[in-house]
């Protein structure tokens, strides 16, 4: 049996090394697939003329569903584009930012408004394995794996959950190794598909509104019918992943990465602002992160302020837990644009 075991182990190890090694060889296959790919293409078409500085909104579905660039521009006088992707957690947001810069979509002089969320890898497991989101499937690198495992390892989860998390991350990493390279194939497919096929595939309504993909103006039937209960529910939802977050975890996995990305942007002459959305049902940890960012003289737009922005805190604006309907999205964009103008005015002073 030994010769067999030795041979098959050697072959499998060699193949795995070849597979991982192929990352280096096939790096030009960088363009992602799925929703983000469609945004890339929309952006490519939209970025004319090139000399106008762009304002990018980068974030999760909260950004994707809530920020209407056309409305924002009409108030703030900018030229903006919504790069929100459903299910996008922190580390892939940063990868998106870096890859967009590397490929020339984001240029020096542009501005990025980065949504702050507490989406963390161990939280993702509990919230139904968001790893299947379109972005992660193709861009889950060794560094992502290390980062995410680091978060899990330092998280308050028990050892069983950690083991499960490690296993899922490990499998996900192996799985995405090749998908990463296959991304180009998907792009090609999608570009060649007719409109009818796209609608048949139930793609969103296209990204002709500069990446904005709102929900309709209705509400989910199971949504609560008063604002207090809604926010109480949202807080519970957020708490699941973050209730025991220690200062140490915050420092390692939020403060330091935010500092790093801020420096990275600064070095490339990209203006970076952080956005705290109004729909998270914010908790203590998020407030601490916001406080830290302000303290470090970062640009922070805080929309989670029921006193200043009461118009954003009504259950009637919600489509489902965590997302506004179209009416809510319009109000959110207006509030964002006004806060943005205030911040710009402060900076000028």
């Amino acid at each position, binding site marked *: 049996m030994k010769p067999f075991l030795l041979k098959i182990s050697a072959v499998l190890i060699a193949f795995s090394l070849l597979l991982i090694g192929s990352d280096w060889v096939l790096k030009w296959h960088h363009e992602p697939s799925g929703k983000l790919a469609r945004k890339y293409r929309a952006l490519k078409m939209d970025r004319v003329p090139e000399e106008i500085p762009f304002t990018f909104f980068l974030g999760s579905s909260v950004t994707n569903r809530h920020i209407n660039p056309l409305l924002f521009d009409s108030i703030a006088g900018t030229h903006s584009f919504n790069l929100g992707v459903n299910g996008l957690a922190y580390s892939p947001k940063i990868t998106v930012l870096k890859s967009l810069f590397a490929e020339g979509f984001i240029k020096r002089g542009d501005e990025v408004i980065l949504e702050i969320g507490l989406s963390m890898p161990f939280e993702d497991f509990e919230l139904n394995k968001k790893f299947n989101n379109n972005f992660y499937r193709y861009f889950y690198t060794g560094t992502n794996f290390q980062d995410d495992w680091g978060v899990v390892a330092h998280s308050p989860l028990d050892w069983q959950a950690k083991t499960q998390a490690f296993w899922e991350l490990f499998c996900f990493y192996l*799985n995405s*190794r090749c998908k990463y390279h296959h991304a180009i194939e998907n792009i090609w497919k999608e570009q060649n598909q*007719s409109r009818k096929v796209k609608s048949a595939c139930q793609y969103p309504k296209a990204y002709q509104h500069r990446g904005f993909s709102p929900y309709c103006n209705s509400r989910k039937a199971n949504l609560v019918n008063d604002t207090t209960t809604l926010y109480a529910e949202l807080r519970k939802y957020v708490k699941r992943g973050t209730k025991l977050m220690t200062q140490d975890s915050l420092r390692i996995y939020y403060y330091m990465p935010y500092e790093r990305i801020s420096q990275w942007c600064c070095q490339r002459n990209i203006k970076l602002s952080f956005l705290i959305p109004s729909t998270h049902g914010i908790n203590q940890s998020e407030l601490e992160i916001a406080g830290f960012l302000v303290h470090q003289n970062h640009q922070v737009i805080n929309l989670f302020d029921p006193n200043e922005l009461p118009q954003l805190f009504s259950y009637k604006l919600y489509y489902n837990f965590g997302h506004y309907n179209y009416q809510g999205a319009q109000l959110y964009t207006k509030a964002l644009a006004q806060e943005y103008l205030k911040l710009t005015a402060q900076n000028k002073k």
Partner: protein
Amino acid sequence: MLFNSWEFLILFLPLVFALYWMAKNRVVQNWILVLSSWYFYGYWDWRFLGLLLFSSFLDYSIGRELGKTSVAWKRKLLLALSFSGNIGVLIYFKYFGFFLDNLEIVLQKLGFAHALPNLSIILPLGISFYTFQTFSYTLDIYKNRLAPEKSLLSFLCFVSFFPQLVAGPIEKAKTMLPQFNRSRVFNYADAVQGARLILWGLFLKVFISLKLAKPVDLVYGNLDEAGGPLLILVQFFFYAQLYCDFAGYSYIALGLGKFMGFQLSYNFKYPLLSNNLQKFWSSWHITLNQWFRDYLVVPLMLKYRSQGASLLIIQLNLLLIGVWHGANWTFIACFGLISIYYLIKCGDHESRRPFKKLGGTVVSILTFQLFIAAHMVFFRSKNIGHALDYFKSILDPNNLTPLKLGSYPLILLPLLLLVGLVLIEFFSHKRFNYPLEQIQKIGPVRYVFYFVMFYAIVANIDAMQPFIYFDF
């Protein structure tokens, strides 16, 4: 647990393999097989382990009792008990809901408006496979073709052996039980063949089947959008998808069997090259067809020897195979089409055919395969209406745009894979049981092929793709 999941490939298989071969004797090895098989089955839903155990203990006890008595009526009673136990469970879980739904429709048409209870019965994984396997054991003893198994442990292994537990091959007791009762030593050549079978099976299932599934799912979900020629092409894709899915599973099962020192039966032998029903049925889901042949067709034909009776028996056989596949009219229609084809072609002997040269063979293969692909429209459709819509769209004279829905990229890769698969079968079918059987003859170049397959598997492996035949 699925064969195409990381849990199985990285944790379960190496662990069971190591424990199994570290065990010093046959009994310990059998215990490891039984426990691991139960874990494998219970991983999906532990509650249904009870059914597996019920089926195992029922037929083991009945087999023992059959061995003790020669009184005809007692033997018949025991056989009836096994039949009602196994087939009763199968009928309840697989067909009862279907029966109620149809009864309700009939009652409504007769003017009885009462709604019957809506039972949400979950179909236990692999129930059609293991009940047939255990019932055949009792039948063999009843027919005095097999002595009752003394060892309960060996019998439990026979029923619950994880490589073939949930989707076959449906093995016979007389070939499997002796294998569980003999000592097994590790054999390098068998293990290597096992690894190749697993690799080939995973490649078929995880890569080819998946790539073929994309246009199939798209077209079946949007019939209005597709032109006739595309529908025909996609139907070939579905046929090949089903083949790769099921044959892939069967090759993996065979490979796992070889890993453990067992020889399971080949379930597929190059069906894409068959040009008549006889060849097709002896190359597609072989063990199921053999089961029906041995336990239904041959006994009935020996009893009723007229030509008319033979025809009726064949029709009954096809009907039952259709019903075996699932509780849906589509399966019955699917095998009904085969039945009609059989009736039309039953006087058509190969020797009388005008095509004798290669060109003729190709034409006969293509026409036969077109029929096979066409009858599978019923296999894939949600209901009869959906299937008829598919045929209507194909035959619609206004719908002849070459490739209306989708674009060339949508079908290019599946088409290349389909052609590649046919070519591989063509070059392998005369000499090998499966294409990689003698690949060592090409020397170290084989590792390039291995790596390509490994890459394709790792890239596409996804535990969310269950095998199509798990539904049966």
